[in-house]
């Protein structure tokens, strides 16, 4: 496991990619930091970090660094060395994730110095600043896990990058999408019914198992209707509630405001674990098919 970690770190630092990633991230954060915190004299670094002008380049940088992480191994057939060596797939994926997470942590440590820079201009709310940096770091870790997962699904780095960016952007825009959907119970009900049917169809397409698809779709449909009949109040804003749970960016707000919310920390770590497990499963599945 350590072998894979070391190899990944070396490949980041022996080529330009690792340096470029760190430099570009620091550049973007630095520009917005000097604009909001230094020029406009705000003591809260969280405002800079959660700024859209940081978020959008950040969401571009994540796929750039994660797109090759597993896709290139299968493209170059070097995965044959990895998966035939006495190391498990889980160890390989985790080692690779830890390497890219370490790479991302280095510029974040540099950002940790920024509040002390501000201190020379006046008083700085240190606790709030560092909770904002922590929130940004956790958000980044979750984004990286999504990138690793997408990279596991394809051999093509470009597809991996585009899909990762699309997922991150979709998650980022979730709040705006929510506001477009009417809040009524009926809307939620209709959307949930359609979703149940779609999931059933997806199950059938993936497994070619007609009965399984019908059962899967039917169960979801039944559960939706029963829940609606028993407690229809749940459906008020129901779809919004579900969708907002996909918004990773929203969870960062509390951190920016200086609230260390345990549930948000658990949420981010869950996202990381969930997508890494998915990535491992995708690779194991490839072996079987």
């Amino acid at each position: 496991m350590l072998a894979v970690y070391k190899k990944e770190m070396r490949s980041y630092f022996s080529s330009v990619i690792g340096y470029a990633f760190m430099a570009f991230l620091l550049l973007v954060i630095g520009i917005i930091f000097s604009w909001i915190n230094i020029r406009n004299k705000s003591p809260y670094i969280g405002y800079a970090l959660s700024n859209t002008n940081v978020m959008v380049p950040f969401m571009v940088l994540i796929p750039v660094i994660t797109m090759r992480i597993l896709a290139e191994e299968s493209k170059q057939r070097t995965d044959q060395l990895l998966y035939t060596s006495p190391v498990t797939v889980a160890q390989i994926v985790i080692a690779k994730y830890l390497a890219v997470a370490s790479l991302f942590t280095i510029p974040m440590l540099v950002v940790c110095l920024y509040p002390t820079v501000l201190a020379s201009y006046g008083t700085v709310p240190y606790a709030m600043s560092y909770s904002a940096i922590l929130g940004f770091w956790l958000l980044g870790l979750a984004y990286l896990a999504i990138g690793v997962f997408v990279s596991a699904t394809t051999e093509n780095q470009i597809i991996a990058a585009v899909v990762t960016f699309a997922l991150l952007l979709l998650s980022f825009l979730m709040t705006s999408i929510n506001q477009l959907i009417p809040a009524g119970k009926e809307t939620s009900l209709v959307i949930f019914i359609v979703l149940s049917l779609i999931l059933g169809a997806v199950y059938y397409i993936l497994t070619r198992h007609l009965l399984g698809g019908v059962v899967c779709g039917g169960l979801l449909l039944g559960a939706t209707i029963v829940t609606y009949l028993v407690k229809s109040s749940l459906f008020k804003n129901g779809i919004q509630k579900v969708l907002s749970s996909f918004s990773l960016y929203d969870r960062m707000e509390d951190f920016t405001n200086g609230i260390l919310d345990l549930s948000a920390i658990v949420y981010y770590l869950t996202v990381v674990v969930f997508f890494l497990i998915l990535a491992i499963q995708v690779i194991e599945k490839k072996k079987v098919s």
Partner: protein
Amino acid sequence: MIEVKHLTKKYGDHYAVRDLSFHVEEGKIYGFLGPNGAGKSTTMNMITGYISPTEGQILVDGHDVTEEPEEAKKCIGYLPEIPPLYMDMTPMEYLEFAADLKKIPKKEKEKQIMDAIERTKIKDVKDRLIRNLSKGYKQRVGFAQAILGYPKIIILDEPTVGLDPKQIIEMRELIRSLGKQHTVVLSSHIMQEISAVCDEVLIIAHGQLVALDTPENLSKHVSGSSSIELICKAEDYKVRAALNKVKGILKVQTETIEEDGIACCRAEVLAPMDEDVREQIFYACANAKCPIISMKPTITTLEDVFLKVTEGKTTDNRGLRDHSKVHVDGQLKPRERR
């Protein structure tokens, strides 16, 4: 060493490997022979644990590949068809990484890497980027990776593809030297290579085992008789009449050919393996006044064997599957008893 039982691999409705069973003994060199797409690489990928079988079981040194993958993989050094090389590393860095992956203890690491480098003769290029190496060197770096850590079993998928003739000879010598300490399984569709290097040959066609034996036995078994090619300066009915009088000849085939403007007869004679009928043929033809211009025995090569046991498989799968069963039954069982 390797025990493969009823191995099947299905891609959708297509069988890449179908009900394949064989046994690999320790300290021998095995050759996988088969046309392209016969399932050689698929089988090797399954033995090494890169892909999982749809059905069946593989035991490597007593460890089930799907149940105890780590134990099984520790015994194997694998060189896939395309060497799994990182282009941005030097051979030295690459072998260090491979040694770490194989969990070779730190103390022995240096020594074993140097040994692998020496055996594959890549010392000159060990600090160059793999990206800039020639195909032959790349292959050898992959080979060094496979033999690193002295694994009990070394599996090589088409190890000599892309090498020049000199390198091929060196590679074969290397494989032969490995066979003294390791069990080696290699695949190829080049017959000479297999007959030059291997102790045992496994012929695979359409995912099924067609034959398993030593190269010499295979040549004998398949023909069951020796054949002689004969050219006489006479009409072919005369030659045929003369030859039919010879005792011990199983079958005669004749045709008229033209040699230096004179009509000649080319005859193919099949005789039992243990009988030399050439002398009798000479006298028979002499008596019949059919001068023999040339006479030579045709040797059954591994190529003929290969073509014979795999031929027609594409057109009539079912019919030949039965045929293959006969072969497997006829040749496998005595081996298993041994």
